[in-house]
């Protein structure tokens, strides 16, 4: 009976992960001091595993709290016997690393980001949001729910770091000499499907082609202006096709 009461009143069993931005920020400061040495500044992993993918990213909030507080015996993950409130703050920060951008607190000016997207940045020449914009880049209508802030930043500042499925640059030369240039939606030894800059789809058989070049370099130019990146993130982080209702863990 005493044990039962203990379990029911254990602070980590009844506490909730804080969601206030201040708690996430406070958690970030604790993380930078105690965790980033092994897990990297953005959770990308170094000596310790990545927190952005793999087991750590799949743990429920309470399980993650438990690992931070108690460590993982038999591994180099030590315990952090801090006040529960602080452990919860770290938990909230780690969780924010993998949270969709829509649920993250982002700085920047979304209106300026929109203006850049459809104006000076020429992003809308290749990307579309709810029918507005161009081809053949990825549709960004729901990007705020599909990517973390970290991923958005990487895609904008280092577009070649990761190219999504169906967006590899492709140049196909047909036997007659005609050239089709765009992104390869799919390809194998027998066929290739290319969307060109006009949004037209070309269904090609490899036997029709004199050559097919695929590039690992993104067609997208990097955005180097730091303010523009921040504003773009602010704008893109809020792009969802439906009101975002979060995900429970």
């Amino acid at each position, binding site marked *: 009976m005493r044990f039962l009461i203990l379990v029911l009143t254990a602070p980590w069993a009844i506490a909730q992960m804080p969601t206030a931005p201040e708690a996430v920020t406070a958690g970030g400061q604790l993380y930078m001091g105690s965790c980033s040495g092994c897990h990297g500044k953005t959770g990308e992993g170094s000596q310790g595993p990545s927190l952005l993918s793999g087991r750590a990213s799949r743990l429920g909030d309470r399980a993650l709290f438990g690992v931070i507080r108690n460590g993982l015996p038999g591994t180099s993950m030590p315990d952090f016997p801090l006040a529960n409130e602080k452990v919860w703050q770290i938990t909230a920060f780690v969780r924010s690393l993998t949270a969709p951008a829509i649920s993250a607190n982002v700085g920047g000016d979304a209106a300026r980001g929109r203006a850049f997207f459809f104006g000076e940045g020429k992003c809308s020449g290749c990307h579309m949001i709810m029918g507005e914009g161009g081809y*053949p880049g990825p549709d960004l209508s729901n990007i705020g729910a599909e990517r973390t802030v970290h991923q958005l930043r990487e895609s904008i500042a280092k577009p070649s770091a990761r190219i999504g499925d169906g967006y590899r640059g492709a140049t196909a030369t047909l036997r007659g000499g005609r050239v089709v240039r765009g992104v390869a939606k799919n390809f194998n030894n027998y*066929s290739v499907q290319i969307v060109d800059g006009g*949004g037209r789809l070309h269904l090609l058989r490899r036997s029709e082609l004199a050559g097919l070049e695929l590039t690992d370099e993104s067609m997208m130019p990097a955005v180097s202006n730091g303010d523009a990146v921040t504003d773009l993130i602010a704008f893109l982080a809020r792009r969802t096709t439906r009101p975002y209702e979060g995900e429970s863990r």
Partner: protein
Amino acid sequence: MKWASLLMFPLLSMAQVTPAAIAKSPNEDWLTYNGDYAATRHSPLRQITPLNAKSLVAKWVFRVDGAKKLEASPIVYDGLMYVTNTNEMYALDALSGRKVWYYRAAGAKGTRVNRGTAILGDRVYFVTADCHLVALNRMTGNLIFDVEYASFAGGYTTSIAPLAVKNGILVGVAGGGSGQRGFVAAINAETGKEMWRFWTVPAKGEPGSETWGNFPAEMGGAPTWTTGSYDAALNTVYWPTGNPWPDFYGGRRPGDNLYSDSVVALDADTGKMKWHFQFTPHDVWDWDANENLVLVDAVFRGKPRKLLVQANRNGFYYVLDRVTGEFLHARPFVKKLDWTTGLDDKGRPQVIESKIPTPAGTKVCPSVRGASNWMSPSFNPATGLLYVVTLEQCDIIVASAKEPVPASGFRGTGNEGIPTEPGKFYLRALDVLSGELKWEYPMPGPGVMWAGTVSTAGGVVFSGDDDGNLVAVDARTGKDLWHFSMGHSLFASPVTYMVDGRQYVSIAAESAVFTFGLFAPAGQ
């Protein structure tokens, strides 16, 4: 820098799928759920014939990740095939089966199956299980709009393949088993704004509302979960409606319960009803009339007429005049039919009292699944035959007078099979005017299929069977020509199309799309 020219690429206009092009379907393409507005599912393609059908071979298989029960009839346009599963759509290279793009409606709720796509302009359209209409660019899958047309939170859900008519995308809802009020809505294909809505249960005080007693229209059912037909010359949309709710107990809804179990003829521009015909007044057997409405022009009793025919779930094959809605003829197309002594000269059935379900259970034929259902029939004008998958089965139906609560799973209670009398499926060829049986092709199996048919000018009818085969039979005789076992149960109807001069036949099996064509030596 070599990409600079691409970035500067002008936005050239794409080939547009016009209403005129849809009116000519099917040809090489298959542009609506049923291929044509008349829902004949008859293709002019004639490369595959009774003589060469035995040379059909599998060309490709596309597995739909996570699919448990594909029910979609694919659409094919310009070498691209569109297939839907719950809340998602795939565009496939129709020649190779390779995925070109994939769209998942993020955040969509509900798990109901999906039956397919509509295409118009440079867009394809489908519905999510939570009643949003989604418009996508047909070549890239880019999202154009996602609009809600009925409230999932309010109990609505849907599985329908929408129908593109003029500048509208027509959609419907499920709800016959859960107490929602059915409707057909036309949504502007360009803007996503609703243009008109026809409620299949009249509001209090409207004509027809007197056929419900005091039962609330909001709970009436009469759902619109299958795709209607369209006659451009008459500017009329024909939509079939489902059962009144609760399905099996009618005591709280005295009267005919209009416009449940009916066909409603609607003005294509306004949605105003021109006429209606009710197949099963005051239904207590769950005999939705959502079976395809096939539009046929023929000489009937010496006079050229525009007809509408339907092999109804209640066991009768009906012939109506689609200009006026006049009942012309009906005839049973199953042997197991015992609920009525027959129809009067207006097509109204005389119900046998002892066949009205009771709390103790009542044996009724046909079964709740019906003599046929949403599995698509097809009609070949050259043979004058309608090819329809039929089910010979009876059920025990149990009724309850319990207070009905919508969206609670309560249907006025339900049905159970009779273990010693399992259902038997047949592909039947009916004379389209008389409904007389010309031939039948038995389909032994576990009694689980919901697959339909496609007819071709080559004289071959393709149908799924109850044992997981796609079968090809001779349109004139029903003789078996070819079959292929997909190792899946079948819940969809096949389509046929042509790419690069070759005819193909496709069908969605449980978790994959299979495509067949005539054997061609490698490299050809």
